[in-house]
């Protein structure tokens, strides 16, 4: 059991002055010594644990911080990507633009449409596309999300590739009938005679600092409850380009959610090449031994910050980006939890029936006897997304650090 004085001092150091102690385990455990944590050297939390689990391959984390603006959490290293040739410094909307441009250059049937896309889009994602590909292939539609979605389905069913833009994920709901009842079921109900795999619907999602109820939602949980649909959310420009190219070229209909806070603030070296990142596969973006943390989208930057805070205390976190929400890569998470014994899932969307619930339910069933602590969810509260208290609403790095400490305290 963690000495309480140690617990309190970690929290205080991070600006969390606890009046009450966290719940503690009654099992005696050997005391551990806080290490003088070196930036790249993370040690297992307890001496006993060290014997039971192999050392992690300590990654030499390259410092990417110079690439990011500091407007939001800047740190998101991109490990393990094969060399893809020359790169350019792109933000998220430019990376999305690059993916669409590449897709439309390589597929003459590909068209892109939605509200305000002709002049470049309200988030600039479609800039220069109409100039390059012409007015028949890049055009404004009237203001109707169900119209955009239905048209995308019909165009794809006739053999084309349609990229429909929904201006905000908060406005995807008029299109839910087309998405759930038509898009997702098109292939199955026809006995595989027809399909609308050519559909990709893109929509911005997530908190942006001032978006309030209707410019901040993350609707992935509504969409994930839809067999036949693919739901993808990138965490930054580099993976966004590869994921969007996979999504556009996928033989299944995809809803591609783009964390809008990252459109300008996330800048990464993005390959100029045409590359695809596989759908349905999660990515371990930070290997670790003590606790598994799962997230998606912009939340991973918050989680990186929480992992950094934990690393200073000698806690080694394994951070996983789901990348594809549906179908999701449960095997990757299971392998990690079997190693660490502890899991935290964190997302902006409200906690009740958020997608975290699916991850937790599956992991407790599949990894019950490997768990050393109850699985934690650090999510938005079950309120609509109000304006004035956004800072307190969001599952920030301090709430996540608190959860990390909680699960560590349960462990032997």
């Amino acid at each position, binding site marked *: 059991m963690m000495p309480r004085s140690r617990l309190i001092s970690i929290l205080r150091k991070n600006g969390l002055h606890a009046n009450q102690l966290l719940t503690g385990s009654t099992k005696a455990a050997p005391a551990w010594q806080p290490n003088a944590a070196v930036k790249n050297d993370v040690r297992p939390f307890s001496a006993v644990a060290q014997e039971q689990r192999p050392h992690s391959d300590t990654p030499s984390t390259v410092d990417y911080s110079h690439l990011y603006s500091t407007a939001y959490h800047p740190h998101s290293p991109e490990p393990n990507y094969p060399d893809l040739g020359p790169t350019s410094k792109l933000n998220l909307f430019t990376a999305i633009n690059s993916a669409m441009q590449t897709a439309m250059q390589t597929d003459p049937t590909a068209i892109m449409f939605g509200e305000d896309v002709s002049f470049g889009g309200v988030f600039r994602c479609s800039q220069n596309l109409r100039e390059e590909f012409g007015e028949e292939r890049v055009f404004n539609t009237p203001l*109707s999300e169900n119209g955009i979605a239905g048209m995308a389905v019909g165009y794809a069913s006739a053999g084309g590739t349609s990229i429909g833009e929904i201006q905000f994920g908060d406005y995807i709901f008029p299109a839910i009938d087309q998405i759930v009842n038509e898009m997702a079921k098109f292939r199955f109900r026809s006995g595989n005679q027809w399909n609308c795999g050519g559909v990709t619907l893109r929509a911005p999602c997530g908190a942006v600092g001032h978006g309030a109820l209707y410019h901040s939602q993350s609707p992935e949980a509504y969409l994930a409850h839809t067999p036949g649909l693919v739901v993808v959310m990138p965490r930054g420009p580099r993976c966004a380009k590869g994921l969007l190219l996979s999504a556009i070229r996928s033989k299944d209909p995809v809803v591609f959610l783009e964390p809008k806070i990252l459109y300008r603030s996330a800048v990464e070296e993005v390959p100029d090449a045409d590359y695809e990142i596989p759908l349905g596969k999660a990515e371990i973006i930070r290997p670790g031994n003590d606790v598994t943390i799962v997230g998606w989208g912009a939340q991973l930057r918050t989680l990186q910050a929480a992992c950094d805070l934990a690393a200073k205390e000698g806690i080694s976190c394994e951070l996983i980006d789901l990348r594809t929400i549906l179908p999701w890569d449960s095997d990757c998470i299971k392998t990690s939890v079997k190693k660490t014994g502890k899991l935290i899932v964190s997302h902006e969307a409200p906690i009740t029936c958020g997608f975290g619930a699916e991850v937790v339910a599956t992991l407790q069933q599949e990894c019950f006897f490997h768990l050393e602590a109850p699985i934690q969810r650090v999510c938005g509260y079950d309120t609509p997304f109000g304006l004035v208290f956004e800072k307190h609403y969001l599952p920030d790095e301090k709430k996540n650090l608190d959860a990390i400490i909680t699960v560590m305290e349960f462990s032997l």
Partner: protein
Amino acid sequence: MIRLRKMDTILHNAQRQGRISFYMTHHGEEAIHMGSASALKPQDHIFAQYREAGSLMWRGFSLEQFCNQCFSNDLDLGKGRQMPVHYGCRALNYHTVSSPLGTQITQAVGAAYKFKLDAMANPKKEESAISIVYFGDGAASTVDFHSACNFAATLKTPMIFFCRNNGYAISTPVEDQYAGDGIISRAPGYGMAGIRVDGNDIFAVHAAVAKARKLALETSAPVMIEAMTYRQGHHSTSDDSSRYRDTDEVKEASDVADPMVRFDRFLKHFGWMDDNTVASIEDEERIAVLRAMEAAEARPDPKLATMFDDVYHEKPPHLIRQEEDLKRHLKKYKIPH
């Protein structure tokens, strides 16, 4: 038309006998199907609502194929996944019917847009295609109808909006459905050409669709047709229309205004048909339907192995696992399947 009428009568009765789970008839609307489908080209895509099987029949869907779908057997092109009458046939460019109303209308706009781009790339006019979307007076109230009309006219997509105004949406008469002048009055509001036609006159329907198709291709624009008709049958086998309308009303429609009665009278007027020939055609078709039905009924279900197929292009890991779970369960408890 006779074939369709016979198929409807026999399969409706089959549902009443418990041999199929559900059926919808087309009594009174046969001229709409045959008149319109005969004016289209094979490359035109049909987006149907659910009461247009005659169009599919015109294109060549066989009685056996209709019955296979209704009996959900191993030869059903839809692999037994949908309720009866939810036909679809890729080879005949007939999109699979889905139960949500009106969703096919916006989809038809997307398909027409594809054909528009195809026509720009391919100068051979005889290969140009349109999409035609059928919908009823009720479906014309849905959100997709309105979005689709606006999109089609604004984006200039070559297509036909074909409304079967048959007086009822289940039990809801048109007086409860709209206050305007039918559906066609909406067309100029959206910026598209339109025409109202006698839906029980097979020639009128054919002429209107032929002209509309030509206009749609020449101007690359949508055209709306409202065909006035009457739904003589119940909405479906789950409906008893005597609960909300007079049998006199139905009788007049079927005796006087029925498209097949009118066509029959026309043919006889010119001496091109006589009662004996009609009777023998009716007999032939009745026997053909019965044979097809018996053959379909005798066939087995699709294989259980198809249950988890086609959700995605490639079966993902979680569905492979769920399929294994089901197999294990069936084996463990020796459940026949």
